[in-house]
């Protein structure tokens, strides 16, 4: 047996590098999200937790589409449960042992429990492989329509495929590791405690390995072990750069999501103060000093709320929003998924710029026009199909509305017909150009009709 101290040092180094890279990246994401300002949602804590449990943990909204929901659930359960085995691998790496938990259970004469648990992990491994293959087929062969679109450029497409291939490789490494381990146990290789028969690796992997020499098998076992644990570390770092951040952010995102009815638009208290003073309405309780209004609506990510930007980092680009969007369905440029991806890309770029320029957040570009065009957000019917479709309560509409507000109030840049509609409301209190004196004409007409009958 050669679990040399060298291996332990390499392992510790890998842990340290992973921790360092992840911490750096997480702090960057945090600071990017905090480019946004505060949120004024009304929220009840019990409702927030209900959303976390039902929508993030329970994946309730996924089940609007049953097949992908089941496939996703498989990978999700596999991801959580199989990583318990990661704990043993981690402990072994740290202490230079081999299957320290198996040995513990052996001491307690509870090997059967260990066997059962590992068999469950292996079952999930096989299921995750099947689900991932199915997912790859849906994306690349069946070409499910919602995975396509103008915003699905080479990186998002590669990202989605890479994750799936990564998953498959990680699962294969577990099965290979267990298969080699079992044969080594059969050959009484020193330092390998009994695990009991692990059915799936026995069926799928062991037949290929049984004819190999003991040292080769040992090499395979070690290689698979290192591949798996380093793979998990690499995966963890990769996730922070990928759409797969939803695995973590889905939880806070649903916690902080809007709880008002979908039809409610976020109020602008700064406008309320202004309008009240214009109408001479006294505000009781609140201090009378007018607060400085920075910018109405959103031109850039710094004008959005941190929750809007968290939404963007939570988006997994599944396209359920876009495929439900009436504007997108009928060929308009608007795609709610693109709105979210643009916000994330912009936050990333601006975050990088800020880090390189002592906290400066003006790089001469903006979310408006450089990323999202007016033609896109002007096409929105505010129908809430996108927010309804999103499995993790992302709200593209809130961002669209803030951009419209900026355009209308800061640039007077609404489409001409909308400007006409505004002046109709201002002058005749109706969006159409009718005389206010005619508003009640229908009553006379009704009376006449009744008289004629």
């Amino acid at each position, binding site marked *: 047996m050669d679990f040399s101290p060298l291996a332990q040092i390499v392992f510790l180094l890998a842990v340290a590098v992973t921790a360092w890279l992840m911490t750096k990246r997480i702090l960057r994401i945090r600071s990017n999200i905090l480019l946004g300002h505060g949120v004024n949602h009304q929220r009840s804590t019990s409702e927030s937790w209900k959303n976390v449990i039902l929508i993030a943990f329970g994946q309730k909204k996924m089940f609007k589409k049953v097949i992908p929901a089941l496939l996703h659930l498989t990978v999700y359960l596999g991801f959580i449960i199989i990583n318990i085995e990661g704990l043993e691998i981690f402990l072994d790496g740290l202490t230079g042992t081999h299957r320290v938990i198996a040995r513990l259970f052996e001491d307690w004469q509870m090997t059967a429990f260990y066997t059962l648990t590992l068999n469950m992990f292996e079952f999930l491994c096989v299921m995750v492989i099947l689900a991932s293959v199915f997912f790859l087929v849906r994306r690349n062969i069946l070409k499910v329509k919602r995975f396509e679109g103008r915003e699905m450029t080479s990186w998002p497409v590669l990202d989605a495929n890479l994750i799936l291939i990564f998953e498959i490789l990680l699962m294969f490494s577990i099965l290979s590791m267990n298969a080699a381990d079992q044969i080594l146990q059969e050959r009484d290789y020193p330092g390998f405690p009994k695990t009991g028969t692990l059915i799936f690796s026995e069926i799928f992997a062991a037949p290929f390995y049984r004819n190999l020499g003991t040292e080769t098998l040992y090499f395979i076992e070690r290689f698979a072990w290192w591949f798996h644990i380093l793979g998990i570390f690499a995966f963890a770092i990769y996730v922070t750069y990928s759409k797969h951040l939803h695995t973590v952010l889905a939880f806070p995102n649903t916690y902080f999501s809007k709880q008002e009815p*979908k039809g409610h638009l976020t109020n602008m208290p700064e406008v309320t103060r202004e309008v009240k003073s214009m109408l001479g309405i006294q505000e009781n309780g609140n201090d009378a000093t007018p607060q400085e209004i920075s910018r109405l609506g959103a031109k850039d990510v710094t004008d959005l709320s941190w929750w809007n930007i968290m939404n963007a980092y939570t988006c997994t680009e599944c396209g359920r929003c876009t495929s439900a969007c009436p504007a997108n*369905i009928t060929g308009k440029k608007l795609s709610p998924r693109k709105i979210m991806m643009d916000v994330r890309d912009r936050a990333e770029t601006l975050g990088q710029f800020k880090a390189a320029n002592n906290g400066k957040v003006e790089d001469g570009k903006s979310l408006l026009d450089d990323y999202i065009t007016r033609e896109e957000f002007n096409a929105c*019917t505010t129908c809430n199909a996108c927010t309804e479709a999103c499995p993790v309560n992302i709200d593209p509409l809130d961002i669209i509305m803030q951009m419209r507000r900026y355009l209308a109030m800061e640039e007077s840049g609404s489409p001409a017909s909308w400007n006409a509609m505004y002046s109709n409301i201002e002058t005749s209190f109706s969006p159409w150009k009718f005389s*206010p004196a005619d508003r009640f004409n229908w009553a006379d007409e009704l009376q006449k009709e*009744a008289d004629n009958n």
Partner: protein
Amino acid sequence: MNSNIEIPVMADLFQKGEEADVLLWIGCAGSYDDRYKKVTKTFVKLLHHCKVKFAVLGPEESCTGDPARRAGNEFLFQMQAMANIQVLNGYNVKKIVTACPHCFNTIKNEYPELGGNYEVYHHTQFIEMLVKEGKLDIAPIDGVQDFSITYHDSCYLGRANDEYEAPRNLLKMLTSDLREMERNRSNGLCCGAGGAQMFKEPEHGRKDINIERTEEALRTGANIIASACPFCMTMMSDGVKNKEKESEVEVLDIVELIAKGKKL
């Protein structure tokens, strides 16, 4: 029929020291749009029939501000909203019913944080209540076998306010042949008019949203498309005309269907 249809106006009642049980909010479409004025009149007739003590603001009514807010002009929205709230609170209004889901949504969800707190009903919810209270008995339309109805969900009633069943419950009292479109309830497709789209031309695309939705409605083979919103009514009617199906398929508001059954 009783030829005298009284339409009490809030200001008059207030002067006489009387009160109404519910304020009927007409909305701009219900006041000015020729097609939707018919819906207003029909609903008023139905309220009379059920002896509901209602009143209207009449000339004092004003746009809720919804299209301005959805288009991005928050100032204009809040100016409208606060002026309306001052009028409504001045008359001590407690309960409001409206045949427009956009007015319904704005008054119900967006007026409270500006100081306007009312119990707000969409007309389909209100009519359903009248039925439950025994004040209205919905009769099937004559020759019920010939009528098949498909209901187009209004976004501002459906997804925006989670009301999918009140309109359907009423329609089920009118016909045994209620057909669902592929996209219904929370998956319903917008008619294309929401978010102030009613007041501008659509952006460039392959097709108009109302055509996409009308095609879906026509695929059900129903000969009536029931709607519960003035904007949906316009969009779906235009869609049916565009498909040259107006001789076979009618677009009607739910209250018009009920009135048809009751021969009001």
